[in-house]
């Protein structure tokens, strides 16, 4: 009985020791973490910083690692937190700058009574849905339009479409109110659609 227990402990310890090895982090995970970050923040410099910060916080939290998840999963979770921290900063800056300038950036799309400003009214793309989904050129234009969006809006899209987060979670992570969130989602889409219409037709 006793020896069995001992065996188990020794065995458990050796697994943990194998599970975390910071000496090998760079060679094992650096590229993977970098790509993960790059897909979400779109800036090479920022992605690099995030990878570095991830390793540094992981070193500090080394004692907390219990081996319940793999080392890789654990590092990704830390990185994801860092990415969300960054998004939160963008959200705060966005809301702050809008509050300061008092400019309602969407207003131009709609008249005072809420009706479409005829200059920006939606016109058919002249392309049926299934065709658009497979159309490379259409994708490229949408990509360019996405790149032009304020960082904050892109952050919301990433959380929504890549991470598949629910509205509630996004609000909590970004520390924005639900009503602000819906306004952001609406504005982003109205802008994106207009950009697509302008460049496609």
């Amino acid at each position: 009985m006793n020896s069995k227990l001992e065996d188990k402990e020794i065995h458990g310890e050796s697994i943990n020791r194998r599970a975390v090895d910071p000496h090998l982090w760079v060679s094992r995970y650096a590229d993977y973490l970098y790509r993960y970050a790059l897909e979400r923040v779109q800036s090479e410099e920022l992605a690099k910083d995030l990878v570095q910060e991830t390793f540094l916080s992981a070193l500090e939290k080394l004692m907390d690692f219990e081996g319940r998840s793999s080392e890789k999963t654990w590092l990704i979770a830390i990185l994801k937190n860092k990415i969300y921290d960054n998004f939160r900063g963008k959200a705060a800056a966005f809301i702050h700058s809008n509050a300061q300038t008092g400019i309602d950036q969407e207003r131009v799309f709609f008249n005072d009574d809420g009706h479409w400003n005829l200059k920006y009214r939606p016109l058919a793309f002249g392309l049926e849905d299934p065709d658009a989904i497979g159309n490379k050129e259409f994708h490229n234009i949408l990509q360019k339009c996405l790149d032009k969006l304020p960082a904050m809006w892109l952050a919301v899209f990433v959380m929504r479409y890549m991470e598949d987060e629910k509205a509630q979670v996004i609000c909590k992570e970004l520390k924005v109110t639900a009503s602000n969130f819906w306004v952001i989602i609406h504005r982003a889409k109205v802008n994106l659609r207009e950009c697509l219409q302008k460049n496609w037709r």
Partner: protein
Amino acid sequence: MITKRKIRTDCEKATFLIEKRQMTKLTAYEYFYMKFHLTFCSMCRIFQKQSKLITQITKKILHLSDKSKFKLDEKFKEQLQALIEKKL
């Protein structure tokens, strides 16, 4: 008081609800508002169709990354390695 005329002309509110509906359930009132508006407004019907299309393609674009071949440069990796060794 919100009149039917107001509902018919307020495309801003209608498009807002169209977006909201793609992520969450609308209240009965909101749903009625949106449906009623769409009955009269061909522009917002176009918007609704295109908005869903944009959602679909954006999802695809974000997932289908051409960044899978990206790698960190060796110099940066060396710096990272040195940093970790120093902290250990």
